[in-house]
């Protein structure tokens, strides 16, 4: 195992500790939950990065027809969904104690992020529908490009046009207007840390899937 993984573990440990230990200014309603910024927001950023990587590998697959690219695209999207689910669940807990409800259908960012995740769930259902590997890879690559291109609209463009309690929407200041410097110092490195963690987890899954594929092709030969 390479050194950067041990360094990453130390890095994430420092991030988690710092998120709890920095002194933050008290804001009514938010109180100590402002610390959630370090955990909740990077989940979404990591999801965006994973979906973007998935789209890049899908495009690459369509031009190279290399099955490894299809595998990379699938893995990136799967890790993206996992981080998206973490973002949704942490957001729900945060919403319950600051907005007063686990879920509200008046909140565009909540609903649209759930829809974005459902679009990706459909991607995995689509994949499971084919036995022919090449057909599966090609069609799911096309679908994945569509799925990834909906994400910026669902999570940035539309929520900004609608009234919302979520920061970064109409009627509510965005991150830059209200976040304390002390939290930013932890928040920016946290994004990098979670990106690297997602890369590591995705790398593990990709390697496992490749061994699995090799094993299957070997069994066919016997």
């Amino acid at each position, binding site marked *: *195992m390479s050194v950067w*993984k041990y360094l990453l*573990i130390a890095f*994430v*440990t420092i991030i*988690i*500790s710092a998120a*709890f*230990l920095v002194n933050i200014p008290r804001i009514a309603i938010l109180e*100590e939950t402002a610390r959630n910024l370090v955990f909740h927001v990077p989940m979404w950023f990591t999801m965006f990065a994973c979906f973007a990587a998935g789209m890049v590998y899908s495009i690459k697959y369509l031009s190279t027809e290399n099955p490894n690219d299809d595998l990379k695209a699938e893995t990136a999207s799967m890790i993206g969904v996992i981080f998206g689910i973490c973002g949704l669940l942490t957001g729900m807990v945060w919403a319950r104690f600051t907005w007063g409800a686990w879920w509200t259908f008046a909140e565009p960012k909540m609903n649209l992020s759930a829809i974005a995740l459902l679009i990706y769930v459909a991607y995995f259902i689509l994949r499971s529908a084919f036995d022919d590997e090449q057909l599966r890879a090609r069609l799911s690559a096309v679908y994945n490009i569509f799925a990834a291109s909906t994400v910026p609209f669902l999570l940035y463009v539309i929520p900004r046009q609608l009234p919302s309690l979520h920061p970064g929407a109409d009627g509510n200041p965005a991150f830059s207007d209200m976040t304390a410097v002390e939290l930013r110092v932890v928040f920016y490195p946290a994004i990098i840390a979670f990106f690297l963690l997602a890369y*590591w*987890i995705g790398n*593990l899954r990709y*390697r*496992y899937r490749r*061994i699995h594929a*090799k094993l299957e092709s070997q069994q066919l030969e016997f």
Partner: protein
Amino acid sequence: MIIALIYSIADSLSGAYEDRWSGAPGEEESNILMQYMSSNDLIFVVLAVSLIIWSVLAFYLIRVDKKISSLEKQFTEK
């Protein structure tokens, strides 16, 4: 419901003990680490819990990584 009922019956034993758990020393007389953990509205307890979860997950990731590496090695040798 039933579990709560059983628990409440079983817990009646605690009536024989003091209100305070006599086994644990008070915050003032405990060692410096325990005093530190008990300060700042117990935020350090939450930090400890989070770090335990993270360290177990990280340990598991390392193990899976090593297992996959050894499998990869076996495949290239063949």
